[in-house]
């Protein structure tokens, strides 16, 4: 594995190997001293052309836990448009001797372009609607902790499916792990064509019925009013995950959310903090999984 762009070319063995490393990283994170010297002397650049404090923090902390040096760049693609290009930015950073680029962009394919331009490892931290592989890995890791083997498990993903890289990457990875993925949302926020073998439905009940786990997606506020949807109330009425609706899933089915949460929009407020919520576990696992990804890409001879 030279880059982590998406899951093309992945098999279950590779996922299992990564998760094994992630479990070792979790043990490291449980220690009083949460740092290991593994990537001493390596440099990781987080390059975020679209703001995301959470993912950026998670990656930077993961890199620091492994003793890598971290440089970070933030700037919107639109401000870049005026002068410097994405390519210029990346090549400039590369000149500092960066070993891995963690890239977030609002356009699909930027990490793939970067991988063509750079010699360093490239990790996709979310590209447009396309993919967010580390999020999917941490979700699958968290689901495996909660449910065991995901083969044959029904996972319902609810919300703005159309614009969601999390939905796409989860459909791809959970499908690879044998889960049956259902994607539910209001019709204007559902893609017109299916992807990665996941099932699409506008009927929330159909997706939730006997689900082994439920994942609510973050919904952009601007899409709720005047955009693709009539109103926030309209969304809540149809698609908010409530106690009653969660009761359609299997007893005790866990609830996930990639964060940040719009409280009382995607999920009824009390549920988000309830015993079935794995939201904080996801954050914790996210760090371990990202450490594992950095380890697999960088704890070896440079390419």
């Amino acid at each position, binding site marked *: 594995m030279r880059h982590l762009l998406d899951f093309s070319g992945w098999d279950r063995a590779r996922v299992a190997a990564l998760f094994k490393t992630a479990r070792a990283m979790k043990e490291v994170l449980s220690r009083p001293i949460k740092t290991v010297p593994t990537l001493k002397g390596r440099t990781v650049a987080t390059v975020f052309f679209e703001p995301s404090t959470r993912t950026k923090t998670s990656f930077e902390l993961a890199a620091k836990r492994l003793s890598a040096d971290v440089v970070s760049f933030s700037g919107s*693609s639109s401000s870049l*448009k005026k002068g410097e*290009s*994405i*390519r210029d930015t990346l090549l400039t950073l590369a000149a500092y001797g960066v070993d891995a680029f963690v890239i977030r*962009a*609002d*356009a*699909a*394919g*930027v990490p*793939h*372009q970067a991988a063509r331009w750079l010699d360093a490892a490239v990790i996709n931290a979310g*590209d*447009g*609607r*396309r*993919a967010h592989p580390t999020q999917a890995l941490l979700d699958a890791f968290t689901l495996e902790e909660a449910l065991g083997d995901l083969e044959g498990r029904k996972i319902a993903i609810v919300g703005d499916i159309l614009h969601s*890289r999390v939905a*796409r990457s989860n459909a*791809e990875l959970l499908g690879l792990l044998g889960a049956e993925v259902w994607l539910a949302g209001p019709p204007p926020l559902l*893609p*017109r*064509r*299916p*992807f*990665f073998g996941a099932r699409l439905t506008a009927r929330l009940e159909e997706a939730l019925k006997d689900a082994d786990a439920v994942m609510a997606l973050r919904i952009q506020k601007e899409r709720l009013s005047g955009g693709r949807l009539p109103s926030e109330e309209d969304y809540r009425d149809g698609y908010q995950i409530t106690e009653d609706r969660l009761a359609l899933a299997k007893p005790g089915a866990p609830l996930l959310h990639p964060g940040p949460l719009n409280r009382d929009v995607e999920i009824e407020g009390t549920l988000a903090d309830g015993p079935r919520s794995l939201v904080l576990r996801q954050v914790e696992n996210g760090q371990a999984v990202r450490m594992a990804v950095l380890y697999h890409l960088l704890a070896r001879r440079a390419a």
Partner: protein
Amino acid sequence: MSLLIRNARLVDARGERGVADVLVADGRIASLAGGEAERSIEAGGRLLLPAFLDLHAHLRTPGEEQKESLETGLRAAAAGGFAAVVMMPNTRPPLDAPEAVRGVLRRARAAGGARALAAAALTKGQEGRALAELRLLAEAGAVLFTDDGRTNEDAGVLADGLRYAAALGRPVAVHAEDAGLRGEGVVHECPLTEALGLPGNPAEAESARIARDLEVLRMTEGHLHLQHLSTKSGVRLVAEAKRRGRRVSAEATPHHLTLTVDALKTLDPLYKVAPPLREAADREALIEALAEGVVDVVATDHAPHTAAEKAADFLRAPFGIPSLEVAFPLLFTELVEKRGVPLGRLVEAMARAPRRLLGLEGGVLEEGAPADLVLVDPRERRAVDPAGFFSKAKYSPWAGWELLGWPVLTLVGGEVVHARLG
């Protein structure tokens, strides 16, 4: 000056015409049976065709000469075997005023290479709201009207434009795409691109708009020309309209005839084009439509941008594929050699049909016809090398493709505008 082209295999829209010595004098084909000339060229059995006319090219002048200039664009056209190019009016500012059309045509005459023809905007500023000065634009030299690059959302304005243009003997060319259905789409909408997370532009955006425009056409006496047809359903609508005798014509581009949405797997904005690359079934329908004449014309939609612009991310990179220099060898190799499309049919679609559509003579090999000629080598196999392009756009989706049929000599009105004879 006179020129004798010896031992050329003649091919035009009527097919293979045998080996002949062609005498060119005073800008015309003087004889197909040899004769005395000041200069002579040994064709060595290469193919002599009527040089092509491109109904659809973006030469970016005025205003965006960093992407292409008249000099580079017309030189590229000559290298591609084109005798003439219709320049699209979506320049900066758009060609919507008679003095602007005169200006660009005057500059083009001094640029060398292929001959330039101008398309003018159908509406002021290409905004689709108020008709441009079509009569004055025609007098200034505009050969067709189009708001290409934009979509004609107001059907009433289009209806008026078709009627007015008909009175002037000019076609109206449309970029048929429903802007609402296209939405923010940048690629063909299908399961592949949905998985790639690229906003989709459905085939129905094209077919729905073609259906509307064909209904609008029924209300007028006009000639509707559909640019860059890309969908199977669009082809079906055009075929049916033609069966009913409507005055409609259609073009297809080299990229829609040779590439499909599968190329998007690379996520390379090199393949970002409007309308988008479609599915294999659409490509097959286009090839069949070209072979049968439902698609009348091959037009390049040569749309150059700077390398830096094309290296932007997929959402921000501009739409467009440059193809003037590869169009003929590409289609000769991929359609004629590999798919059995008759060479005569390709020559028809690239040379005679576009001229007829504009009411121009030529596009045939006969005594007295204008000496717009191209000599191509059907045997020399050469890889596409964008670094060697005359166009400023030195990139290509076909880079590295091994092609036959490269033009080695292009004549415009009897004058050599391109020569790379060994």
